[in-house]
């Protein structure tokens, strides 16, 4: 259940980027998440909504962009998507792979709303 600590890290980062004034709320947070990042999206969403309560992030939607596991095969030279439980090149079956993507966990951007007249 490290999703809770990951949700906390996301909230900390986002709060550093929103204007410090009344009436600002975050509508959505866009996140990239690799297939090998070891994070359960449903669990992360649940933790994030719990963390967000009572902060400008309350009610914000977590938009998760999934990044597949891809690798360069050192045997046949192909670049392609890899099934994490097989960890073999989809073309030649080689297992000497250089991972290209799949471990990402990054806050991309946020959408904010500023409510006028709110104090």
């Amino acid at each position: 259940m490290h999703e809770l600590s990951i949700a906390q890290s996301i909230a900390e980062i986002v709060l550093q980027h929103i204007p410090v004034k009344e009436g600002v709320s975050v509508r959505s947070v866009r996140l990239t998440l690799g297939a090998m990042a070891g994070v359960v999206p449903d669990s992360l969403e649940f933790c994030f909504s719990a963390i967000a309560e009572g902060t400008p992030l309350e009610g914000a939607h977590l938009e998760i962009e999934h990044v597949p596991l891809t690798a360069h095969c050192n045997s046949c030279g192909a670049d392609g998507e890899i099934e994490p439980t097989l960890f073999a090149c989809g073309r030649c079956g080689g297992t000497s792979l250089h991972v290209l993507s799949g471990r990402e966990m990054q806050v991309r951007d946020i959408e904010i709303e500023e409510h006028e007249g709110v104090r």
Partner: protein
Amino acid sequence: MSVITIERKVLEKNDVLAGQNRALLEKHGIFAINVVSSPGAGKTSLLERTLEHLAGRLSVAVIEGDVQTDFDARRVARYNVPAVQIVTAGGCHLEANLVHDALANIDLANVRLLIIENVGNLVCPSNYDLGEALKVVVASTTEGDDKPLKYPGMFRNSSVLIINKIDLLPYVNCSIAALRANALRINPSLAVFETSCTTGAGIPAWCDWLIARTGGAAV
């Protein structure tokens, strides 16, 4: 409504602190390993056998991570090595800041090898760099031979695999050949050791490897 671009790694704070830990350890010439496994694979028993075998040959310090209790640090303290217990109070993994605080309680000048025993968990600890030189994953024969395929992230991120509890092979449904093949499929560069903490098998080879990696024996 407006969009604000952020483009920051979620775990950047942990990574920065891990970098500081790594620099501190390198400054003191300390080789640090982060030992991970599922609960009950035998991390602490392996640590005890390792300390026993390295006594008088290599100066070791230990950081113990557990969700609750200081049982493990007490077990380790019997071997007269500096041991710091981190109780995560529910946290399923160690983070770099916890190790940073623990390092402040160890006299690093006299240490050549630091063993960090992570919380028993094959998922979460793989995301958190602690500043170690490498990760050592322990898989015991009682867990079966398909763990590497179920938890590829951890096996991919580790440099060493220790197959523990080999004395139980006659009684469990586990093939060492299959376990090795599955692990090496996920990570062909893994160094593999086979150990039993009950009989002591494989412990000398593992300890010799540790001594070689720390740059030779020195107490």
